[in-house]
């Protein structure tokens, strides 16, 4: 099965829940609405993608995103599946019943981004202490202990290439939003 | 002979003291440890009576085997070591009477003597004599006792199994 055929199948099956799609080499890149994400994962697993390489999150300021990287041990195709979720109420259905590997990945994603995984068997923080406040990898997370990046003025001096369309703007240093409650217990 | 007598009294006092700790101690592990000392004192008394084989067996079986199993059981039973055991219970009176009666009997026996308690002749080596006696004269009681022990062992295993 070529990546193109796979993409066709997915599009047929999931119709307009597939908002973006692209084939890049052996990799199929998909964006799917959260309500169809579990079914899509299930479909892809049955299509031979039995190996969940990575599950990560990203904060696009407007929305959060859960990213699944899938591959197969039998054929070279890969899938890069992105599921945008609402920032205020980030819930997506857990895929731990499809790949057990998702267990700790989803816990990490919850820990650092605050995405809730519906149906996760052990929904706890994993890297941070259990009483930590806030989700540190969100772009608006502020912490006075965080050392911001400084380029000593290099950014302005050098010519700036055109940003690709659709790409987000550079986030810049975190804006001092409403101060958070102290994190020290 | 005064030296031997002195040693005897010292060992006897030590044994009785250790036995008293076993009975009166509140901490069960300490009581078990005192029991070991008591057994060792007994073994030393056997040596004084020229019963060296008996002394060695006393240490090997009672100290090396039974008390260790006892300690093992105490430690396996969770938190029993931390609890203070009740020393006096409602059977204290009965056991007191039994102890006093036993003591009286022993004092009588050792002062006036009973025919049956006249010991065997002094032997240079007790072990060969014991061995021969156990396998000839007393072969049947020996076997009966071992069958009894075997039955006890099987019973213990059946009790210990969960199913």
């Amino acid at each position, binding site marked *: 099965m070529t990546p193109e055929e796979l993409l066709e199948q997915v599009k047929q099956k999931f119709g307009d829940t597939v908002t973006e799609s692209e084939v890049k080499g052996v990799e199929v890149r998909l964006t799917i609405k959260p309500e169809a994400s579990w079914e899509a994962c299930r479909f892809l697993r049955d299509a031979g993608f*039995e*190996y*969940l*390489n*990575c599950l*990560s999150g*990203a*904060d696009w300021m407007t929305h959060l995103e859960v*990213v699944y*990287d899938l*591959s197969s*041990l039998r054929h*070279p195709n890969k899938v*890069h599946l992105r599921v945008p979720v609402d920032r205020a109420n980030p819930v997506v259905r857990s895929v731990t019943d499809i*790949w*057990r*590997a998702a*267990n*700790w*990945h989803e816990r990490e994603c919850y820990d*650092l981004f*605050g995405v809730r995984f519906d149906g996760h068997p052990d929904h*706890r*923080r*994993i*890297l*941070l*202490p*259990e*009483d930590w*406040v*806030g*989700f*540190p*990898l969100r772009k608006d*997370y502020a912490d006075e202990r*965080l*050392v*911001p*990046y400084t*380029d000593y003025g*290099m*950014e302005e001096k*050098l010519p700036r*290439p055109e*940003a*690709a369309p659709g*790409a*987000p*703007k*550079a*986030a810049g240093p975190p804006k001092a939003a409403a101060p*958070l*409650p102290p994190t020290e*217990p | 002979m005064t030296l031997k007598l002195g040693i005897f009294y010292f060992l006897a006092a030590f044994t009785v003291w250790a036995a008293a700790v076993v009975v009166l101690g509140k901490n069960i592990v300490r009581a078990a440890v005192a029991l070991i000392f008591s057994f060792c004192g007994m073994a030393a008394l056997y040596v004084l009576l020229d019963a060296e084989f008996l002394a060695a067996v006393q240490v090997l079986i009672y100290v090396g085997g039974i008390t260790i199993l006892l300690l093992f059981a105490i430690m396996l039973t969770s938190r029993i070591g931390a609890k203070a055991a009740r020393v006096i219970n409602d059977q204290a009176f009965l056991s007191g009477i039994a102890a006093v009666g036993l003591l009286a009997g022993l004092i009588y026996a050792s002062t006036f003597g009973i025919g049956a308690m006249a010991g065997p002749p002094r032997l240079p080596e007790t072990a060969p004599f014991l061995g021969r006696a156990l396998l000839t004269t007393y072969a049947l009681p020996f076997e009966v006792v071992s069958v009894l022990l075997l039955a006890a062992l099987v019973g213990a295993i059946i009790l210990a199994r969960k199913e």
Partner: protein
Amino acid sequence: MEREKPIPIGTTAVMERTGETMEEMYVNMGPQHPSTHGVLRLLLKLDGEYIIDCVPFIGYLHRCHEKIGENRNYTQIIPYTDRLDYLASMSMNFGYVLTVERLMGVKVPERAEHMRVILAELQRIASHLLWLATFGLDLGNFTIFIYCFREREMVLDLFEAVSGQRLNYSFYRIGGMPMDFPDTWIDDCKAFLDWFKQRLPEYDALMGDNVLFQKRVQGVGAIDPKLAVDYGLSGPMIRSCGIRWDLRRNDPYSVYDRFEFEIPVFDTCDVWARYMVRRQEMAESARIVEQALAQLPAGDIMAKMPKNIRPPAGQVYCRTESPRGELGFYIISNGSVKPYRYKVRSPAYVNLSALPEMLKGCLVADVVAVLGSVDIVLGEIDR
């Protein structure tokens, strides 16, 4: 971000949460225990000596690696990757620079590619040696520890001659390598390989051929191959389940497709298979290094790179085969000097998540052996 109700931790709290009674015993192993290989805490649920369940607690070494990564520029991140898996820093550097190069579409000079492979494979040997050493120590064999450290020391000497460092090398650069090998380095490396190949039977004599060792590891900590894939195990962990899966061969990167090497596979799925796989991998790595040294082309070691590295906007997930398995870097770039999102998929993190599965039904004394066989490095797990 409202304050979440803190979830109670600790043995009694977990028992209450899971509704368990005192019928089963709970034992905490770690975080202060000599055999947990770092600050890892395992909560073991026991029925007598047998393990019913196990809950690993990690995070004691969390260093906000990904958050820091988002606040540093691409070059500045390289030294941080050293601290991920501090026993295989070369492999960590390799995975990271490869990801950024793939994002930028840079072609790295041939000589640099060969150098990278040589160093990464030497690093694999060093990492497996350290694993074998500590694994032996866990099982009570102290002598193998010193033997392995002797050879690892030689690898570190080679690394020191190249990079000036013994542990955290930071030697790979985006676009190539910073320095060529020193004058006599190639001969030294060849001499080491000759010596090393003769040492492998010694390890066998101390470990693999020893009946006591075999009794301890055979049939212990087995995991079903299907479950292994389901859990996303990688590296020696999945190859010990009879699955021939090695990214150097299945998804070739750098110049790995030019070398001849076997992928050791064992299908008993237990601790013994993991031992055998790693032991054979050391020999295979030595073979790769020999071939790479023989083929080492002349030429540049650095591609032409802009002064400020600014990959075009886009995202890439790039996976490499580190000594512990699939090391993935996921980078989202928005065209600025620092990554917009920087994520590490660390192999030991995923491998450790399958530990409860492997421990079920084992004896308490097996925990040390099984945990040792997973080959965890907490620096990489906690990031």
